[in-house]
């Protein structure tokens, strides 16, 4: 087990002194949460943990995909469709696994045997190709039923596909990106903050990749609309109320957006959003999810790591130490890889 070390502790952007750093248990819940007022954490150690947890689902995620180039569904990552044939249409969100694979392929870190592997590149590329094949004629995508035209699936899967293409330097499926962006420009779902943030990020990502101005302007508009909707308490609406899990996701998405389009308004909104999380997240990394509007238990980290919100990260870290924080591998096939990708991004953030 790790030896106690001495490190610098940081709150927000302030370093407040040298403190002892506790053990690094690997999140298996065998050590109790340290119940002292002295916060102990080093970000690189936490990031190493995030990477291990993100990587832990790699084999499972690869197994979800059709990896046979001769198959008509090559690149489909909805196993319930292509393998079990239990569904009559593929869930577009499963194609977000391409983003997960792209992050693994492009980053060499301890334990990652997939970095630089040509087959990973091929499968990620196939994921994007299959994504473009299952697009509805109007540019939208389906998640729960055929012909659904899901705003959620179109937003998140478009962003993931663009990121996959960007990270791997693939030839973009121009028509699919254009049609998805056009559909996102025309449609919105203001009742659900995380989806609005994802749509803005997708539009901005398409604009940056294809060098188009219109989607970037629409993305700006959408972000402004989302910021206008922010409650004085700091939360973004999730069907009328605040939800810690989705708030952490929205913070991650907006923090990613901010790297592409910095601005004081978004920075200020993020500060308020973090204050909401600050009030809800307990010292042991838990939160009363049953009191939240959507009752989600997950907690996205990449935004907080980008913003160096060490106070919140430390509390989540306490949850990891105690084995109470929900990890990517705890989630089902439908949702594990989104959180897994976020953990990888959080672990790789400089």
């Amino acid at each position: 087990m790790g030896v106690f070390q001495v490190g610098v502790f940081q709150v927000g952007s302030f370093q407040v002194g040298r403190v002892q750093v506790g053990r690094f248990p690997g999140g298996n819940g065998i050590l109790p949460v340290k119940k002292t007022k002295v916060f102990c954490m080093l970000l690189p150690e936490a990031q190493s943990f995030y990477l291990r947890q993100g990587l832990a689902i790699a084999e499972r995620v690869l197994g979800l995909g059709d990896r046979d180039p001769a198959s008509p569904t090559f690149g489909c990552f909805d196993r319930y469709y292509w393998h079990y044939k239990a569904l009559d249409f593929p869930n577009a969100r499963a194609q977000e696994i391409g983003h997960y694979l792209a992050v693994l392929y492009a980053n060499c870190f301890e334990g990652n045997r997939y970095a630089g592997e040509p087959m990973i590149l091929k499968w990620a590329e196939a994921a994007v190709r299959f994504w473009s094949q299952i697009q509805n004629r109007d540019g939208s995508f389906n998640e729960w039923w055929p012909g659904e035209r899901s705003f959620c699936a179109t937003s998140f899967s478009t962003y993931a596909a663009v990121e996959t293409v960007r990270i791997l330097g693939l030839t973009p499926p121009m028509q699919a990106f254009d049609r998805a962006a056009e559909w996102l420009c025309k449609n919105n779902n203001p009742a659900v903050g995380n989806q609005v943030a994802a749509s803005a990020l997708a539009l901005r990502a398409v604009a940056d990749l294809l060098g188009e101005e219109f989607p970037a302007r629409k993305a700006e508009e959408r972000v402004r609309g989302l910021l206008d909707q922010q409650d004085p308490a700091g939360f973004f609406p999730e069907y009328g109320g605040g939800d810690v899990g989705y708030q952490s996701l929205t913070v991650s998405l907006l923090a990613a957006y901010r790297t592409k389009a910095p601005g004081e308004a978004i920075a200020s909104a993020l500060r308020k959003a973090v204050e909401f999380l600050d009030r809800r997240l307990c010292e042991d990394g838990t939160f009363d999810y049953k009191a939240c509007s959507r009752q989600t238990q997950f907690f996205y980290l990449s935004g907080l790591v980008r913003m160096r919100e060490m106070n919140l990260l430390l509390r989540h870290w306490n949850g990891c130490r105690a084995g109470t924080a929900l990890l990517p591998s705890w989630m089902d096939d439908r949702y594990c890889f989104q959180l897994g990708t976020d953990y990888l991004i959080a672990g790789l953030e400089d």
Partner: protein
Amino acid sequence: MYMTPLRMAALRLYLTTFGRFAWFGRLLKRIAVRRMIRKASEPHVPSARFFTPDQLKESGK
């Protein structure tokens, strides 16, 4: 409300006929959101209800 083979068949029939038109698709989504989220005593959230260790204590009560 749980799905049954009959309900599933009816849903698929709707989706493959009226559901091909965007307006009917949006109508179905509005109804689903109202019944399963806004008006539900316990809102349905797909990405929720995963196991967390604190539930061991709840079941032991």
